[in-house]
């Protein structure tokens, strides 16, 4: 099953400047795995060292946040679009408050 993964602007430099990639996958997790197999440099920006999606990486399956579906186990079907949308955070000091 072919799924299109939309690559956000800050990561395109690690994906041959492409804004999307077609991968074969049955779940969202497989699609992201396919993407990072094609473009290995993407992996450290999407996943923590222990293999979890980074907190500021938001993944949508056809406009639905996968946190409200079955997360990375969410099944995909032919023609689905997966979007990776950044959220942005930062701050001045080490400790909150």
């Amino acid at each position: 099953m072919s799924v299109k993964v939309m690559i956000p602007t800050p990561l395109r430099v690690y994906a041959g400047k492409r804004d999307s990639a077609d991968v074969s996958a049955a779940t969202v997790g497989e699609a992201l795995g396919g993407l990072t197999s094609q473009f290995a440099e993407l992996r450290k920006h999407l996943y923590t060292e222990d293999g979890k999606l980074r907190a500021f990486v938001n993944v949508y399956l056809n406009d639905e946040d996968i946190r409200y579906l079955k997360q990375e186990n969410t099944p995909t079907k032919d023609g689905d679009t997966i979007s990776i949308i950044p959220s942005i955070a930062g701050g001045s000091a080490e400790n909150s408050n």
Partner: protein
Amino acid sequence: MNEPLELGITAELAEKIREHGVETYPYECCGALLGTDHDVLANAPNQESGRISREVLSLFPLVNRRDDSPRNRFAVTADDVREAEKAARAQGLEVIGWYHSHPDHPAMPSDFDRDHAWPWYSYIIVSVHTGVPQDMTSWRLKDDRSGYLEEKISPMKVSAAN
């Protein structure tokens, strides 16, 4: 990224960032930098010789979503990012980075900034001490996420979009 990094911005837009930092003091302000990057973005016009490759041409001020700790944290949700991208596209631009203020702290990225940063984006930080804007710096995350590279903020006399 071996070449020196440079970010072009007009004095007017830089002043708007400072004003936003003063307005929200003692809390952090945040917003999106809209512009062009001639090295990466397909829709950017051909670069003229001597022109800065990355230019801020518009701002998209946002509300800091970290209402639990707004003095030393800022957050921009995925929905805000989508709104900023929509605003950029409407002007024929792209989101090329983000700005935020450091109330009563230097304009240096913190470890917290680094842990949450995306590569490629420019991150402008303006320091605001006792309500008065101080230094403004800009940074890009290193490819290996180990730290930041400072980029030179270059004043532009007129917007390249004009």
